[in-house]
């Protein structure tokens, strides 16, 4: 432990210190040996458009305990033997005093996407994204920020004006509390003034590219869906005008809507280059790279049809894609059938390329890590 951490522990009071320490443990900053006792529960559960359930992390120290779901437990309520016990797991009500029975530590709460993104940023330790510094496309926004002595009467600030008048009358000794009539003079008038703040353009487009060839199963698609949700959530918290496009490909690429993107299951071979070409078409047609932050995410099981095509992909990336995107993210969803060769190809060629983030997602548990990798750079 570093000296500054040390002092932190002793200066913070009570629960804030304990809470901070807990959060540090959960985020893996300290006490790594406790990492294995942290339960994160599930990351996703979207209800409607706005809400999603978020689990609360907890650390359960090991004890001598009975195995799960053994034996029976008590309950109270309606139903016949054989019926499912109604309701979800209940939170243990309001603890009215210090008890020592074990509580259930996981519960689901509804949070808005904005809060969720905040939590996500905190949990994963994601840096805020620095928007592309394109000063030539600044937009200006103006806000009323100050008070002026001159200005149009339509912007007269009544309260300030009368306050000035009151001050003057009191100072001059002509204010009569019995008959509080206040008449502003010209010198009392105050007006709202505005200031303009230049704001860098923050438009972003995410292009999801998914391999839907025969080797991508439902499990793999589910992982992609989950990833995409979290990517959306994070980028939406960072950019105002976020647009999304979806490309699926097997041997040929097609642009599809969101629904189709998640549902399609094709079979057949894989030509990754087809998707990259389509991606470039879309970008050049609709999103001039000077004005847009561009985030392509490509998910595949890494099984490309031929080496020639892989080579073509690498050339496309090198010459056309990297120069225009903020970051190119490649997520390799492991499947039984895929060889995963493309991942190796990428790393081999672009180990130095900082615009490329490639990671492998083994299973659902891997989602968390990969999201962290995707956004760790804050690009």
């Amino acid at each position, binding site marked *: 432990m570093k000296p500054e951490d040390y002092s932190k522990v002793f200066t913070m009071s009570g629960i804030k210190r304990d*809470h901070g320490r807990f959060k540090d443990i959960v985020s893996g900053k300290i006490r790594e040996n406790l990492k294995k006792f942290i339960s994160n529960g599930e990351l996703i559960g979207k209800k409607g458009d706005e809400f999603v359930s978020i689990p609360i992390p907890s650390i359960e120290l090991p004890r001598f*305990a009975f195995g799960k779901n053994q034996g029976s437990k008590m309950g*109270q309520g309606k139903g016949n033997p054989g019926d*499912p*016990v109604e309701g979800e797991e209940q*939170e243990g009500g309001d603890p009215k*005093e*210090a008890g020592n029975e074990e509580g259930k530590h996981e519960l689901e709460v509804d949070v808005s996407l904005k809060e969720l993104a905040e939590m996500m940023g905190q949990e994963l330790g994601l840096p805020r994204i620095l928007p592309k510094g394109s000063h030539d496309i600044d937009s200006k926004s103006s806000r009323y920020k100050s008070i002026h002595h001159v200005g149009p009467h339509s912007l007269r600030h009544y309260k300030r004006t009368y306050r000035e008048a009151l001050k003057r009358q009191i100072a001059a000794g002509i204010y009569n509390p019995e008959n509080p009539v206040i008449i502003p003079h010209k010198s009392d008038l105050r007006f709202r003034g505005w200031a303009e703040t230049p704001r860098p353009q923050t438009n972003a487009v995410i292009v999801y590219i998914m391999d839907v060839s025969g080797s991508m199963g439902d499990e793999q698609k589910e992982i992609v869906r989950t990833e995409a949700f979290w990517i959306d959530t994070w980028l939406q918290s960072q950019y105002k005008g976020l647009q999304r496009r979806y490309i699926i490909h097997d041997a040929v690429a097609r642009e599809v809507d969101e629904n189709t993107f998640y549902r399609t299951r094709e079979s057949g071979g894989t030509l990754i280059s087809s998707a990259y070409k389509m991606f470039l078409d879309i970008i050049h047609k609709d999103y001039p790279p000077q004005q847009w932050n561009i985030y392509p995410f490509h998910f595949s099981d890494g099984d490309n049809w031929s080496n020639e095509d892989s080579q073509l992909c690498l050339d496309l990336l090198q010459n056309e894609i990297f120069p225009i995107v903020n970051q190119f993210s490649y997520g390799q969803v492991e499947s039984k059938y895929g060889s995963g060769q493309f991942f190796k190809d990428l790393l081999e060629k672009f180990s130095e390329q900082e615009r490329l983030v490639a990671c492998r997602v083994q299973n659902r548990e891997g989602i968390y890590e990969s999201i962290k990798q995707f956004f760790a750079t804050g690009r």
Partner: protein
Amino acid sequence: MKSRDLGPELNDWIKYIEDKARSYGLNFPEVCFEKVDYKEMNELASLGGFPQRYPHWRFGMEYDRISKSYTYGLSKIYEMVINTDPCYAYLLSSNSVVENKLVIAHVYGHADFFKNNQYFSKTNRKMLDEMANHSTLVRQCQEQFGVEVVEEFIDQCLSLENLIDLRSSGELPKTREEEEKLPEEVQKIKAKSYLDKFINTPEFLDQQRARIEEEAKKEEKIPFRPIRDVLGFLLLHAPLKNWQVKILEMIREEAYYFVPQGQTKIMNEGWASYWHSHMMTKDILDDSEIVDYACVHSGTVAPHPHGINPYRVGLELLRNIEDRWNKGRFGKEWLECEDTVKRKNWDLKLNKGREKLFEVRKIYSDLTFIDEFLSQDFCEESGLFASKYNQSTKRWEIETREFQKVRTQFLTELTNFGQPMIEVVDSNFDNKGSLLLKHVFDGRTLKRDFAELTLKNLFSLWKKSVYIETAGEDGKSQLWGFDGKDFLTRA
């Protein structure tokens, strides 16, 4: 903790309710009410009601959970009360007047229970100070030995925290000599000389001699008989540094302090709910407040399908007892009566209900309370059931409503807080100074991975191999162990 003025209205109500409570025969120490805002309430709740606890992340975890579930409107803590003298109780500053009245009445119920129930008779009523001392102790240790080192040791102790003897109130385990001095020679039973040869027969004397020899052999073994207070045993026998002894002592003391509360959850909440509902409806509420009251009250006593709501079961069972003793529905005649009509109209007009309740609150714990008073009629009326996890449908399903099975299940859950029964059997196992624990097997197996990690923690205190005798899936005895490097299994 900042203390805020409660305001004249609340002070008047406190006085009024206190007088009422005393007039019903409740007997409690002075109760100090403090008004706290939701942040302070969440903080206090995560610290178990005590404003000062030793620094540890698990309080932070509790806080995380409580404050998130408050923020998202899932649960709200109206009140909290701690078992000290004077009693401290916290009121949430955003409570309405009705809520506060309910809480105050409820708190006096708890205060009475803390003072009079026998399971609390040995608890430290100055625990507020003790907790603050513990906080100082841990801080000092952390300053001297490092935050991580101390925290890690606390974690290891906490992983063994449940290994205490719930039947005792925290005295250290005794050695054979302390417990009873073995006679050196065979003691004859005093008798008149002419009766001596009949009373102290040669067989009897031989028997006694054999017993003494046997006991003397046992004496060499530590512990001389199985001990459930594993923490206490470690405190006496584990090779610990001075500061570690102090920390372990602290963890053990706190664990024992909270035992009575765990042992009387149902009764304590039932008793407090009984009195708040009685006083609220009889003495405190005016007509306009009755709906608000009913809303809050029904919230606290709603049945839980996944487990027992102590507020509800406690309250229902106490009322059931009151009714039974008012009508004389107890004793041999009642139990043997099988005439349903007669049973239904059974009323001896004894009016002993209230008297019985005061007796119950004095001498029972949840376990004995349910054991004694859970009747078939009550079980059916209140809709209690036992549920079981169905492996094929992957959900919990109602298993049975049969009285005997439900009762057994209920008692099983209350026994040893529903945790495995574990004893220290031998501190020189294998003749290598290894520690041997024994899990008293009742058909439920231990969670293997957790048991292994717990053994690892135990090893770091004991510093030599540690074993636990338990049973595998097949119900046959197995020995699990950790020798500092590997986990071992022996059939």
